[in-house]
């Protein structure tokens, strides 16, 4: 019997057992070997023969398990044989033939269908101890004629079933991969005071090689990233996952150019030779709009200011190509009302039914139309869909629109300093609350008060070590978006570090000190808090949303996964 190299549980090859092979042409179907797969064009073939349970008087039965090498001449010989063949007339230089002989096989009947050897019936000596007669052989030959096509059909059906099963498995694996990949993309873009992010991501296949990310750098800046791995589908998705992780872990390694340089060096040993990654990194100061960027061969982002669209240019090689690559950096200040669009070539390189590309011109024209970031993303998706006509989406599409919605610079409400004397935190709280009162009410004003007094207390006790001659400096600003309080110390004692998240259960069990609530309270009392150090000077910013949507998230992300 000829079969697959890999046994399946249903037909596990059995080890050879001792005893004579029993066979009798009087019940040839009982002696016929079970059908297995078609001879493979490569790999070893396995022939084996299973006897029926032996009749009570018969000697023991056995299974012949035989691997046939694809180069074994027995295959060509049997394929062209015209009926039952005596083992003795098989090519003597065939290892399989020798093994058959040793197993006690006397006659083999090739099963040939459509010119292909699909199986073999192997028989041991007749039970009657006489040789196989001419009638026996005729019977075997006609049996083979009928059995071969049936066996071939069975083999084809099983092959198809196996193919369908593996296809199904592949598909469900891809679904899981898609879910995993979606976890990489930000579900909810971080809340950025006055900034609005709208994003769209649609891979050409189940998974894709595009990515985008928004990483809070913790000092009032965010890192915005878009990238595109060459190719699409699973290979691209694997490289995308690793690039995404490297970017996240390298986010704090310096300027955008330094981040790209680091990721490039880390990526080179991991990435297949014919693949690379284009990537744009921007670091945006949310208070000032100051934006540094560097570009590893990604599409140049568009900036719209007062209806005029320009591109932000910086040169650099794609990631994963060349060790030692350096990345040009540039800087721009994003002003209130500006709109920024980051996009992958899935949009610009999409073709229409006439083979024309969507191109940069159309993208730029979409950018020129008035409307906010969300409307821009919607417009781009609609335009791309209309343009594609009956063409399938060719590549992954990513769009990220960033908008600075504040229309006026923050206004200074109050500025003052207090000596670093314990208790002065209440003075800071009182004055900040008085300044903030027209903009915040009730529990939100009280919440800011508690956060301010805790922060001022840390500045007095830790930052300035209660040195009365050193001041704690306070500023209160308000814009149409947020009210912000900055509290600065001179960094004598360094910032406060609270070892663990305070937990009342642990505290009551004596496993944590009863203290350590300060930073915990600050973080929960205000909408945003971040810290920044300039030299020794250490400043904490506390911000509360003001205006119509105060206290509600102002971000949105949409996913267009198929």
């Amino acid at each position, binding site marked *: 019997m000829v079969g697959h190299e890999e046994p399946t549980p249903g037909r596990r090859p059995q080890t050879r057992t001792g005893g004579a092979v029993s066979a009798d042409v009087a019940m040839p179907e009982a002696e016929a070997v079970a059908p297995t797969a078609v001879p493979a064009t490569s790999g070893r073939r396995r022939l084996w023969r299973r006897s029926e349970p032996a009749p009570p008087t018969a000697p023991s039965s056995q299974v012949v398990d035989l691997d046939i090498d694809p180069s074994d001449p027995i295959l060509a010989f049997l394929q062209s044989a015209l009926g039952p063949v005596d083992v003795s007339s098989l090519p003597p230089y065939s290892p399989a033939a020798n093994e058959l002989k040793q197993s006690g096989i006397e006659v083999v009947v090739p099963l040939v269908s459509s010119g292909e050897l699909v199986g073999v019936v192997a028989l041991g000596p007749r039970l009657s101890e006489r040789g196989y007669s001419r009638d026996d052989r005729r019977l075997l030959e006609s049996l083979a004629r009928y059995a071969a096509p049936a066996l071939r059909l069975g083999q084809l059906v099983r092959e198809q079933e196996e193919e369908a099963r593996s296809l199904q498995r592949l598909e469900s694996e891809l679904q899981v991969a898609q879910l995993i990949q979606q976890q990489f993309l930000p579900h909810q873009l971080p809340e950025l005071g006055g900034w609005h992010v709208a994003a769209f991501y649609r891979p050409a296949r189940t998974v894709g090689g595009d990515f985008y990310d928004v990483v809070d750098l913790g000092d009032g800046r965010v890192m915005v990233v878009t990238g595109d791995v060459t190719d699409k589908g699973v290979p691209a998705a694997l490289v995308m996952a690793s690039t995404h992780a490297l970017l996240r872990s390298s986010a704090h390694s310096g300027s955008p150019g330094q981040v790209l340089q680091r990721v490039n060096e880390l990526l080179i040993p991991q990435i297949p030779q014919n693949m690379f990654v284009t990537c744009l990194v921007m670091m945006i100061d949310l208070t000032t709009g100051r934006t540094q960027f560097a570009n590893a061969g990604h599409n140049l982002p568009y900036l719209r200011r007062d209806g005029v669209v320009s591109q932000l240019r910086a040169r650099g090689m794609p990631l994963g190509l060349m060790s030692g690559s350096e990345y040009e950096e540039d800087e721009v200040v994003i002003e209130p009302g500006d709109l920024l669009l980051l996009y992958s070539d899935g949009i610009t390189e999409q073709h229409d039914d006439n083979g024309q590309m969507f191109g940069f011109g159309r993208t730029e024209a979409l950018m020129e139309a008035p409307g906010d970031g969300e409307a821009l993303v919607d417009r781009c998706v609609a335009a791309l869909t209309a343009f594609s006509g009956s063409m399938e989406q060719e590549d992954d599409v990513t769009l990220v629109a960033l908008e600075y919605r504040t229309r006026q610079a923050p206004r200074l409400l109050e500025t003052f300093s207090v000596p670093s004397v*314990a*208790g002065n*935190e*209440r003075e800071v709280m009182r004055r900040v609350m008085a300044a903030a009162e027209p903009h915040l009410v*009730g*529990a939100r004003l*009280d*919440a800011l008060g*508690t956060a301010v*007094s*805790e922060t001022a*207390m840390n500045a007095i006790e830790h930052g300035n070590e209660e040195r009365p001659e050193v001041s704690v400096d306070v500023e209160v600003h308000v814009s149409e978006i947020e009210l912000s309080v900055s509290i600065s110390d001179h960094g004598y004692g360094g910032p406060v570090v609270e070892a663990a998240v*305070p*937990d*009342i*259960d642990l*505290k*009551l069990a*004596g496993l944590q*000190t*009863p*203290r*350590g*609530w*300060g930073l*915990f*309270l600050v973080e*929960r009392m205000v909408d945003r808090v971040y810290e920044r150090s300039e030299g020794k000077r250490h400043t904490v910013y506390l911000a509360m949303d003001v205006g119509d949507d105060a206290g509600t998230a102002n971000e949105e992300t949409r996913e267009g996964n198929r």
Partner: protein
Amino acid sequence: MTMSYEVSKAGDVAELRLVGRIDRDALSSLDEAYDSLSSLAPERIVLDFSGVEYINSTGIALIVGILGRARADGRNLQASGLTPHYREIFEITRLSDYIEILQHT
């Protein structure tokens, strides 16, 4: 003195009325207040915060300390007169898991 207190008792319930601010200056008076409560041997203690104008993180730590003592003594702690803001702080610190907050009637 930044925090003063009054102690009263009715049946098994003792009331501790706190006035002023609960911060690091309140440490000794809060301990003293609990000592005088203990001598009344109540089963239940109601902390009345209606006269309190300010509680900071150190004050929260002091209240955790009082709660620890009350639990060790097998006494039940309740709080009344909290403003919405301090009620929120009791909730986010999960003090409210151990100290029942009584609503104003």
